[in-house]
């Protein structure tokens, strides 16, 4: 059971953005994906999450082929994501932002939802309770009724995490989750990621910050120019001459 990319390629006309990339994200571990700007990290993220068509190869989650699935089907295959640029729903309250994360679990019929039948009301009450528990766990209960658009940056990141967790994923894709955070904030998120992994969740961490990645991941992949140039334990990979060249500029420096 893992999130697997097999020989995944993406071509934009003649430009190769991803060149037969192979990545395996096992459950219960945090796997890193790093690479300099323009290495093709975002292309990989967009292909996994169904926002970009895959040219070649196969992507699967827990044995289920999601290569050509749409974004909402991928969520139902229990793969959640956060966004590089925070995307909360600014018109809604903090609590409402989490409620939408439970969408996958809402099973009442459409007619019951339209007519406001007891089954729909009970379901709504149940997910409100679950959302309140998540808020408690993240220490944000006091902010439940506030408009999400007015939250601080760190709180918005946490809110996005809670919303992704609400869908109860088996795998989570974190796209630069600590961008713009200070050390205290990123340390508390690091603890959270480790806690999630220890409960069995498989995490793919896409990050710029090499220190953060090497602290959290047992295994990392390095991407440059659309292809993997190294993989393995952080201590080994980061000493790889090709990786150092990609990051520092190599022979041109």
């Amino acid at each position, binding site marked *: 059971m893992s999130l697997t990319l097999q020989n995944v390629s993406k071509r934009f006309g003649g430009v190769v953005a991803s060149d037969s990339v192979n990545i395996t994200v096992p459950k219960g571990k945090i796997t890193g994906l790093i690479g300099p700007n323009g290495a093709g990290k975002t292309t990989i993220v967009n292909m996994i999450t169904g926002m970009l068509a895959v040219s070649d190869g196969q992507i699967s989650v827990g044995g289920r082929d999601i290569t050509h699935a749409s974004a*909402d089907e991928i969520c139902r295959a229990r793969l959640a994501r956060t966004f590089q640029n925070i995307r909360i729903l600014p018109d809604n309250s903090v609590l409402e932002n989490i409620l*939408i994360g439970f969408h996958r679990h809402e099973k009442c019929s459409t007619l019951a939802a339209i007519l406001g039948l007891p089954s729909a009301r009970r379901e709504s009450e149940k997910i409100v309770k679950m959302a309140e528990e998540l808020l408690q766990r993240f220490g944000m209960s006091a902010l439940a009724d506030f408009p999400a658009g007015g939250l601080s940056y760190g709180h918005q990141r946490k809110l996005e995490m809670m919303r992704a967790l609400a869908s109860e994923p088996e795998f989570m894709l974190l796209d630069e989750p600590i961008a713009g955070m200070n050390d205290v904030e990123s340390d508390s998120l690091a603890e959270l990621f480790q806690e999630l992994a220890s409960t069995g969740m498989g995490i793919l961490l896409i990050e710029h910050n090499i220190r953060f990645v090497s602290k959290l991941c047992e295994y990392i992949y390095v991407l440059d120019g659309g292809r993997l140039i190294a993989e393995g334990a952080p201590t080994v990979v980061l000493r790889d001459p090709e990786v150092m060249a990609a990051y520092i500029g190599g022979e041109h420096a």
Partner: protein
Amino acid sequence: MTNILLGYQPLFDLFLLHLGMAYSQWLVLRAGVFSLATAGLAAVGAYTGGILVVSLGFPAPVALLLAGLAGGIVALGLSIPLARLRGVYQAIATVAFIQIVLSLNIYASGLTGGPQGLNGIPKTVGTVTLLIAGILTVYLMYTITNSRLGRAFDAIRQNEAVAASLGVSIVRHQTLAFIISGALAGVYGALEAFHSYALAPSQFGFTFLISILAYVVLGGRNTIIGPIVGTAILLLLPEIARPLAEARMLVYGLLLILVINYLPHGIADTLIERARARRLSARLAKSDSVATTATRN
């Protein structure tokens, strides 16, 4: 006193009819569909209801249900091309749809009475029926908003990528919103037909479209009370300022420009937001210590 109130009864009826149409427009906007098709779908419902009663002798309640069904089915058909479009292109496509419906009203004269309109519809709908319809409509809008559907609509409207990443099917939910909106427009079109003896082919044209849209924009797009406030203000305004009644569209235009500039979320939505902000900051001041610990974590 009773006489004065009775004098306003036609206005109240008009308010209830237009309120239903406003909710039809409100619901699609809420789900992020920039459709203006409500006027066309109301025409479909009005003519379906009118023809069923006048030419085929159906009882009014049955015709009303079938008119709602017709509105919903036409909306379902229309949603297929609309799902491929976004924003202003959806608006243009739906305006084109209204033009088609208006042309059919005129040219299919054997069915619709053509330019003379459809006459001799028995008046079976009065204030009480309209009031019941209004209460039911508000109830349905309330339950939809507070259900998984309303939450999905909100997410899609604000960010389609987020909605999809959380498992919300955009096409399915927008189609559903459009069908409900179409059925609502169909029912209220038929109610209007059964309320007013006759239908004119251009009745659901551009002026009507703008009025309906204005109710929603002026009142507010994100609260249930928005369309009520918008419809009430825009219908009452020409009555309160009688000399302005002639310049109704001018007043509409001016008011809209003012509201869009100074209260972009609409009158009701802005007031509700402000009240909420005041309540929250008061609560925050009261439990300051709790909130700051939460912020520090």
